[in-house]
């Protein structure tokens, strides 16, 4: 068989095995288009939330139940994120923590040991705070996002830094624990971070 014939037949065979779920992809593209159109509203809501948080901090001692300034906690109510693409996004939105044991082989291999905090916002943003020992002391990782499709959670954590692909997981949230199980993942460092132990819902 000539090289040309071999290349043609192998590429055709490979292409035939690619059978995407077109409807799911269409839904994802439409969902990704929505935050752009609601950016103005989200920005206004965010600004309003910051102003309210600042007022609460300033008037803290005089308000019942306001035990002291906590800008981090008060600046992240679900109401600041704007319209959600679907109820599933509302369900998963929240702050989660996990402490990875440095004595775990994979954790040690990727230097992931320590306490991680991950905030999932209903508009698909991820705010990830690594332990001080990770990387060069980065306090937060930016530009992260996720999409949900059924029970699947796709994310770009570590993309371009340590991963060259998007990771796909199934997710479940029960008894205060968020669990991820890899279904399409080629990046071991992200898999170690997300699925070694369940993430705990942070109050």
């Amino acid at each position: 068989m000539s090289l040309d014939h071999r290349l043609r037949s192998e590429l055709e065979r490979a292409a035939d095995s690619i059978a995407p779920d077109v409807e799911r992809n269409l839904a994802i593209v439409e969902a990704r288009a929505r935050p752009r159109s609601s950016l103005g509203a989200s920005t206004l809501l965010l600004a309003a939330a910051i102003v309210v948080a600042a007022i609460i901090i300033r008037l803290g001692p005089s308000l019942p139940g306001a035990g002291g300034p906590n800008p981090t906690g008060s600046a992240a109510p679900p109401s600041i994120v704007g319209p959600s693409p679907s109820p599933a996004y509302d369900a998963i939105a929240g702050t989660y923590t996990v402490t990875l044991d440095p004595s775990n082989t994979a954790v040690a291999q990727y230097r992931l040991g320590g306490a991680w905090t991950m905030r999932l916002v209903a508009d698909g943003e991820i705010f990830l705070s690594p332990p001080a020992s990770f990387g060069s002391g980065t306090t937060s990782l930016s530009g992260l996002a996720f999409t949900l499709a059924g029970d699947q959670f796709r994310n770009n954590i570590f993309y371009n830094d340590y991963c060259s692909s998007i990771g796909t997981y199934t997710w479940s949230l029960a008894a205060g624990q968020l669990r991820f199980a890899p279904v399409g993942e080629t990046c071991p460092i992200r898999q170690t971070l997300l699925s070694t132990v369940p993430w705990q819902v942070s109050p």
Partner: protein
Amino acid sequence: MTADALSESPQSGAAAFAAPARSLAHVTDAPLEYSAFFRGEFAAVLRTVELMLRDHGRAEELTQDAFLQLLLHWPKISRYERPDAWVRRVAIRLALRSIRRDRLWQLVRGGLLPKAPDRPSRFDVDGAIRQLPGSQRAAIVLHYYEDRPTAEIARILGCSESTARVHLFHARKRLAELLGEDDRVA
């Protein structure tokens, strides 16, 4: 990447997919024409991108990116004679950029972290094509899978026809070496 960066001249009266005369900026649901176009074209574009990248998740993400650009510029692009060619070109260029970025990261971060294990090969030439630079990968896929002539490959890659021929020549030569084949044209 903006729509203008990859635009074609609209062909008057030749719109294959007529779009409503309204801005998409305030639309959250795609117009019906866009949805129909998506259903007809997405799989074919994804196949080409995945053959280049050899990574289903990333190929899907980049193809979505291209179709998202199309959705955001649908009123304009849908008036082109070949909106399918536009979105295919955007997707392929995104894939090229991604391959280049990965190769650069591999150079920069080489040895910093253990290399992620490759996915099991689905066909014999898989590993060989992975060895090629992005432009050569694209040229091989466009020529051998999509059966495109070099003039069209050049237009998609944004290079001259002679450059496209050189990409194809070097890619073929390298694949012949890697696969232990005779590289004479059949």
